[in-house]
């Protein structure tokens, strides 16, 4: 299991390193050129759909995923304005490829344009869902600018569906992020929509505060005239609702300070004109009210602003109502009702019904019933949509939680695997250290063992000598004290016997006793020699060397000359031990490889330099200098190092080898 995790980590690392290199794959240049040409054509000309279909066909031929995604996206936002089937094809393929290629940014981008597409087709819930996907992904990859944009889009949809609370939550988040990213335009938009939302929630004071914030944010935005105008309009709406018509009028008037407003934004111009006229009507001012309202209506009809038309018609109906022209009022109210119905503009349907009910008390019941039915169904509808949003948001949260869990799991896996790696490497280091220590210990043990062996050798030799000496002593004493005395006593008595018996003339007898005396002398000399040869026998290290040469049977195969003039009893035992081993090694080398016939071994003491010169020379075949030293030679060198000596190997092929070692003594 641990191993598995380890491999997982390693593989992840490998793949992470590998993937970028794939992007360098070449693409057929012709294909690229034709796509680019079509895209250019599309941007410049009409008859777009054919061109974009062609481009799509070419893009599908691209084999490289990352490039295909890039081109798909280029086509995708262009196809947004054209054939819906084509757009869905392009977008679907784009999302599929981007998911396959795990390019989160493009997945999010495709979702964004899909959201735009759905919104355009009034499928607000689907749009909300797409924006939600995009928002989640942008947040995941840390693209906060786009994340805020998506939240804003969602908030707009929520606002439309009267999910004001949800919208407000999202907008506040947008405001926070855009403040951080210093995107003041988006900040303005967020404050502005927050104002609208609170207006719709009837939190008018809060709405005013937000609008002021929005105006403040505009201070840092270029070309902010239209935005400012729109916010003034919104402010006017708030004051209108507060029935503070003077302030409302003041704000509406500010809109007209914008230069060329009509050219820039006829919607806003008409709206402002209409609103101003309506407020003036509310303050009781009638001058130029109707012409202004009619002008606004004309503009709105001209630009087909359906929601505006119904409002204008309602306002005009109000005007006629206030001047008592009920017929005209009813006519405009009914027009407004029709327009609103065509436009599914429930707000204005309700308003028109309310107005009609006021204008025609006899029919008020029918209108009121319709009004109540509609408003009920609207509320249900709104609740449904809100629930849907809520569900989408909940699902996203769930996904996010899962992602967080995955993230946590990944962190834990990473932590565990790095812990395992650390532990593993420390165990590895520990083992290396231990084996090093062990080898050091072994070396030390080897050294101790070497010294012990040498000591044993010495001891053995000494014991051997001791035994020899004891035995010799015993024999000498036996000969001297017993045999010789016995022999002497007997000879003496024999002689006296001869004396007494007077057989002096018997020469044979005299010879025999004289012979006995000779035997006595010989025995005495033998005994003497036996007990007097100790010094010659006891040579200590020189003895060991002789023993070694004898044991290796060098004399049998080689002519041997040994010159040992060192008084070894003065030399430290480790030097003797190493010298012994070096000699053993060199002789074995000579016997194995040198094919020599003559060997010269010399130990001498250089008293001036205070060092022992140890030379082993042979007349064998020698070896090349550049030859790798064998174990034997390495051992010799390490031994020489151990006793701080110097070694000089003089060898040429065919002319023998001379190993000179200089060992310092203290």
């Amino acid at each position, binding site marked *: 299991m641990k191993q598995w995790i380890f491999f997982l980590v390693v593989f992840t690392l490998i793949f992470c390193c590998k993937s970028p290199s794939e992007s360098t794959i070449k693409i057929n240049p012709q294909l690229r050129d034709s796509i680019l040409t079509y895209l250019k054509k599309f941007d410049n000309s009409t008859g777009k759909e054919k061109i974009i279909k062609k481009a799509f066909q070419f893009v599908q031929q691209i084999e490289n995923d990352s490039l295909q995604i890039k081109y798909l996206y280029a086509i995708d936002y262009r196809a947004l304005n054209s054939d819906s089937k084509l757009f869905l094809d392009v977008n679907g393929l784009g999302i599929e490829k981007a998911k396959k290629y795990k390019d989160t940014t493009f997945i999010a981008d495709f979702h964004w344009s899909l959201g735009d597409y759905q919104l355009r087709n009034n499928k607000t819930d689907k749009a909300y869902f797409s924006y939600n996907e995009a928002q989640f992904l942008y947040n995941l990859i840390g693209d906060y600018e786009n994340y805020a944009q998506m939240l804003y889009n969602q908030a707009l949809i929520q606002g439309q569906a009267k999910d004001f609370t949800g919208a407000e939550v999202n907008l506040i988040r947008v405001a926070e992020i855009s403040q951080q990213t210093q995107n003041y335009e988006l900040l303005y938009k967020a404050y502005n929509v927050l104002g609208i939302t609170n207006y719709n929630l009837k939190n008018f004071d809060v709405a005013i505060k937000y609008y002021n914030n929005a105006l403040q944010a505009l201070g840092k935005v270029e070309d902010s005239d239209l935005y400012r105008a729109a916010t003034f309009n919104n402010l006017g709406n708030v004051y209108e609702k507060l029935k503070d018509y003077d302030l409302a009028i003041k704000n509406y008037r500010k809109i007209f300070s914008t230069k060329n407003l009509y050219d820039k934004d006829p919607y806003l111009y008409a709206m402002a004109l209409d609103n101003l006229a309506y407020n003036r009507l509310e303050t009781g001012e009638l001058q130029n009210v109707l012409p202004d309202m009619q002008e606004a209506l004309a503009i709105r009809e001209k630009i087909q602003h359906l929601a505006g038309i119904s409002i204008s018609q309602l306002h005009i109906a109000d005007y006629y109502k206030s001047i008592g022209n009920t017929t005209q009022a009813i006519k405009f109210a009914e027009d407004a009702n029709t327009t609103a119905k065509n436009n599914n503009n429930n707000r204005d349907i309700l308003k028109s019904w309310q107005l009609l009910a006021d204008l025609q008390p006899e029919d008020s019941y029918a209108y009121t019933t319709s009004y109540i039915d509609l408003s009920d169904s609207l509320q249900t509808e709104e609740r449904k949509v809100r629930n849907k949003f809520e569900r989408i948001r909940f699902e996203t949260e769930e996904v996010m939680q899962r992602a967080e869990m995955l993230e946590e799991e990944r962190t834990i896996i990473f932590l565990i695997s790095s812990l395992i790696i650390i532990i593993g490497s420390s165990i590895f280091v520990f083992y290396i250290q231990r084996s090093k220590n062990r080898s050091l210990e072994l070396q030390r043990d080897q050294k101790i063992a070497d010294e012990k062996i040498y000591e044993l050798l010495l001891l053995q030799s000494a014991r051997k*000598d001791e035994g020899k*000496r004891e035995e010799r002593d015993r024999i000498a004493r036996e000969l*001297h*004290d017993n045999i*010789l*005395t*016995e022999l*002497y*006593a*007997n000879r*003496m*008595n024999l*002689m*006296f016997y001869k*004396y*007494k018996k007077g057989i002096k003339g018997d020469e044979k007898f005299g010879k025999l*006793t004289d012979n006995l*005396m000779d035997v*006595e*002398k010989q025995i*005495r000399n033998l005994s*003497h020699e036996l*007990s*007097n040869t*100790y*010094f*010659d*026998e*006891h040579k200590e290290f020189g003895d060991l060397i002789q023993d070694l040469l004898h044991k290796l049977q060098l004399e049998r195969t080689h002519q041997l000359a040994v010159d040992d003039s060192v*008084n070894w*009893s003065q030399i430290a035992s480790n030097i003797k031990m190493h010298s012994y081993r070096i000699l053993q090694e060199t002789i074995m080398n000579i016997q194995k490889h040198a094919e020599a016939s003559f060997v010269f071994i010399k130990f001498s003491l250089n008293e001036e330099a205070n060092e022992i010169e140890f030379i082993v020379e042979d007349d064998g075949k020698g070896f090349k200098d550049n030859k790798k030293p064998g174990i034997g030679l390495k051992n010799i060198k390490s031994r020489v190092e151990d006793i701080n000596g110097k070694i000089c190997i003089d060898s040429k092929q065919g002319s023998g080898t001379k190993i000179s070692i200089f060992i310092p003594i203290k």
Partner: protein
Amino acid sequence: MANYNVLLVDDHPMIIAGFVQALDIIKENNEKFDFSRDSAVDCTTAAELISDKKKKFDLICLDLSLPGSKDGKYNSGEDLAKLAKKHQPKAKLLICTMLENNYKVLNVMRRIDPDGFLVKSDTNPDILISAIENLLKGKTYQSSTVHQMLKKTIEFSHNIDEEDLKILFYLSKGILTKNLPEHLGLSLSAVEKRKKQMKQFFDIPNRNDKILLEKAREKGFL
């Protein structure tokens, strides 16, 4: 007619018998001599006899290697000789021993200075008889080996003292110079100094102990 009290000490009855025969032969040859004999085969009896105040010995024949006394006081003829010098000052001493080495002979000559010194293997009845006769006449006697040895050492004997002899002796036993102080009660430097001196006397190169010992043996110190 003179009666001589003789003490014969040897661990070997056969040798005592030899001495007795020699005394008998002297008595036969010369009517003037008469002997009364005591004999001992070990140090204990010998020491008792020597220290007996009633006894007045004229001649004491001693072997050097004898079984020691039970009290451990006397372990060799040498110890008995010292005792005899004390208790029997008038007695003539005849050492008759198996010669082990020159060193021992030299030591005995230096310490006891006996009137007669025989090496057993040199002797035959004539030598034994003449030695006894000589001693009884107040002369000294040395058998040929002893005589030659003393002649050899005479050249250096005034230079080589007892400690030097010990050094040579131990060296010949194979004891290392560095261990000599344990055996001698001398410091190592003193030992080295003496060795150096001896080498100078013998006129041999400084370093080689082997040659020193060879020379010492040649000159009769070993």
